[in-house]
């Protein structure tokens, strides 16, 4: 049995194939010889009660092993790093977990791998890290006051900027409309006004120029 399991481990065979190999080595599951009517172990197959019990126990154990194998999936380094990228090193400052070479980060990345193998989602893993190590792992300050300040400040700045921009826009609209109307009216007035030919200086200059031409 151990040698068959060793074969499985060394050869890299898939579990169902190994199960078949194991079962065919158990006398209770082997067909009786056509000539003697007895199995390879010398007994009469299913009538050998202890062998049957052992075989059933083995079968159950193998089924569990097969189930566990099916539950666990292969996790790639890319999958681990995709989550590690969203977390920060616990001992360095502002270093993402995926880029950190410290022993602590190596352990944390391994923890991510194990949790992925257990079938946990990205959100569940990140939440488990936050629950276990605090908000600092996702880059949020640990101190409540500092956390509140750092979270509220951008919102306040955004609101102030938005209100400010709104007020400026409203004032610009209010002041620019009458100014524009006045400018248009002034322009129209200038275009419609005829040249004032009654102006003495202007008439005198024109007449002088005309005389010089003649």
């Amino acid at each position, binding site marked *: 049995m151990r040698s068959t399991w060793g074969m499985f481990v060394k050869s890299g065979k898939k579990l169902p194939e190994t199960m078949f190999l194991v079962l065919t080595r158990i006398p209770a599951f082997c067909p009786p010889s056509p000539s003697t009517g007895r199995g390879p172990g010398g007994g009469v197959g299913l009538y050998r009660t202890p062998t049957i019990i052992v075989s059933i126990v083995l079968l159950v154990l193998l089924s569990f092993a097969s189930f566990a194998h099916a539950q666990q999936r292969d996790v790639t380094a890319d999958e681990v790093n995709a989550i590690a990228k969203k977390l920060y090193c616990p001992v360095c400052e502002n270093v993402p977990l995926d880029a950190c070479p410290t022993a602590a980060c190596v352990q944390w990345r391994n923890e991510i791998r194990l949790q992925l193998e257990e079938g946990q989602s990205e959100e569940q893993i990140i939440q488990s890290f936050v629950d276990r190590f605090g908000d600092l792992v996702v880059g949020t300050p640990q101190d409540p006051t500092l956390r509140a300040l*750092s979270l509220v400040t951008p919102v306040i700045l955004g609101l102030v900027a938005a209100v400010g921009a709104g007020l400026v826009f409203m004032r610009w609209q209010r002041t620019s409309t009458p100014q524009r109307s006045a400018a248009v009216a002034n322009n129209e007035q200038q275009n419609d006004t005829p040249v004032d030919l009654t102006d003495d200086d202007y008439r005198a200059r024109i007449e002088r120029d005309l005389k010089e031409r003649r």
Partner: protein
Amino acid sequence: MSDVIDELDFLQDVTPRPQHEDGGFGFFGLSLGSWVLLIGVLAVAAVFGFALLKRHETQPTGGPAPDFRTPLLNGEGDFVLSEHRGEVVIVNFWASWCVPCRREAPVLQATWERFKDRGVTLIGIAHEDTDRDSLAFIEEFGITYPNAPDIRSSISAQYNILGVPETFIIDQDGNIAEFIYAEVTEERLAATIEQLLAEF
């Protein structure tokens, strides 16, 4: 010259213009943009200033030890510091990834075995360490004194620790008697513990 100025009425007009005419709110003569900038600078300064203050907070070396409650790693209930008044309590912050902690673990275990029946409690706080690795570390070094995880790093924050290992020795009244910012030695621990036991 003064006659000319006298004739120009607008130069005599000294009535101040309302600030809002040039786009300001009219508060303290600052424009809207100045106010936004001022608030922004103050908010950012508050965040950085507070962070700087927190950064300069150091580990307590005296006074009452911050109380904490944490579940034990072996699942045998909680450890509450204040429930150990009347005992000398050694609070040791460690991590399985920390090399000096590996050297320190046998020393702490030896100290625990030496003093555990004389009113001394030792609690290990696993700092920034996964439970799997903490338990493997405990098994590897055969540690029998209680150990607990630092849930949400709250105990580390209370004691302002900067790394591991760090050890606090707390007297029978719940005050910090000594802070050790290095790997502990059995001699140093024993000297302080003996002194505290003798004084009590």
